[in-house]
């Protein structure tokens, strides 16, 4: 999995996890996606994609705090692995390579 390019949703998720930093869990990732990325999605879709990427070694998770408002359920904190960072760069490079030399997109920045 780590050698393939990321889908747009996976790329946005990894970038959101990186942007949120140490407090990256479902809720904060969803907010970052919505507020910065302009993409509204469901928490289940985020979990599904993150779990798939965890199996591929692109992210790792650890258990966080439990709070009453969460019904005593622990947060699952996410962080991007070295393989995840490489996948982001590889995907970006592919996009940039495709972007270059298109007259209709001249002046637009990748």
């Amino acid at each position, binding site marked *: 999995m780590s050698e393939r390019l990321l889908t747009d949703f996976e790329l946005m998720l990894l970038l959101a996890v990186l942007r949120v930093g140490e407090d990256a*869990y*479902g*809720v904060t990732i*969803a907010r970052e996606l919505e507020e910065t990325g302009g993409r509204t999605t*469901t*928490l*289940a*879709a985020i*979990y*599904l994609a993150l779990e798939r990427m*965890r199996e591929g070694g692109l992210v*790792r*998770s*650890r*258990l966080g705090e*439990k*709070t*009453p*408002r*969460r*019904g*005593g*359920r*622990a*947060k*699952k904190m996410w962080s991007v692995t070295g393989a995840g960072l490489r996948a982001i760069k590889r995907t970006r490079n592919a996009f940039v390579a495709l972007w270059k030399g298109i007259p209709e997109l001249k002046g637009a920045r990748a």
Partner: protein
Amino acid sequence: MRNGETPSRKLPFVATVLLMRFGPQDDSLLGDIAEEYQAGRSGTWYWRQTLTAVALTAAGDLKAHPLRALSSVLIGWGSLLSCFALGDVTANSIAGLIWGWSRQAAYATGWWWPFQVTAAFISYAGFALSAAIVARSSRRSPAMVLVYAASVIAVLLGFAIWMETTAGRPVPMPHTLFFALSVALPYHWRSGVLLAPALIVAVGMLATPPREHHVPKAL
């Protein structure tokens, strides 16, 4: 409300039960949904999260265990039709006991409603029983009840459409099948197309044991 405060709103009950029974076995996701709801999200938002989580779980189970899904559907329909094998005798007896109804007389008088009422009761009891059997037999994949419910929707809807296209012509069918399909007939206002799957989901929820708390791997 700040993080860590006592929850002030009650979570939507039915949606929460659906999520806990048929959703992903991930407590953190349930916690995230609860946290956002406590932070002021609407009931509609909660339902949308729930239905998406349940649908994604069912789709994932279906993809990962197609044979398990097929066996759930077969177990469901097998138990349903087994229930109905004696449906005619049971319906005749109950209608006879309560209303003094007899099939012979009904052919002459057209007095069928006692049989129709009894048959409807037997039909829904059969759907409920089959849902309980499917739920009990697929404990490792609770969402299989939803796959069975989807198969019931497909069959009843297909039957209702077929009835519409053959309107006015008698439809011959074995009486065992009659109890499974009659709830989609016009005299039931085709209500069974929705009611039967809803009953299957409701009974499936009750018959599915509560999830064990899943502790995700901390990597």
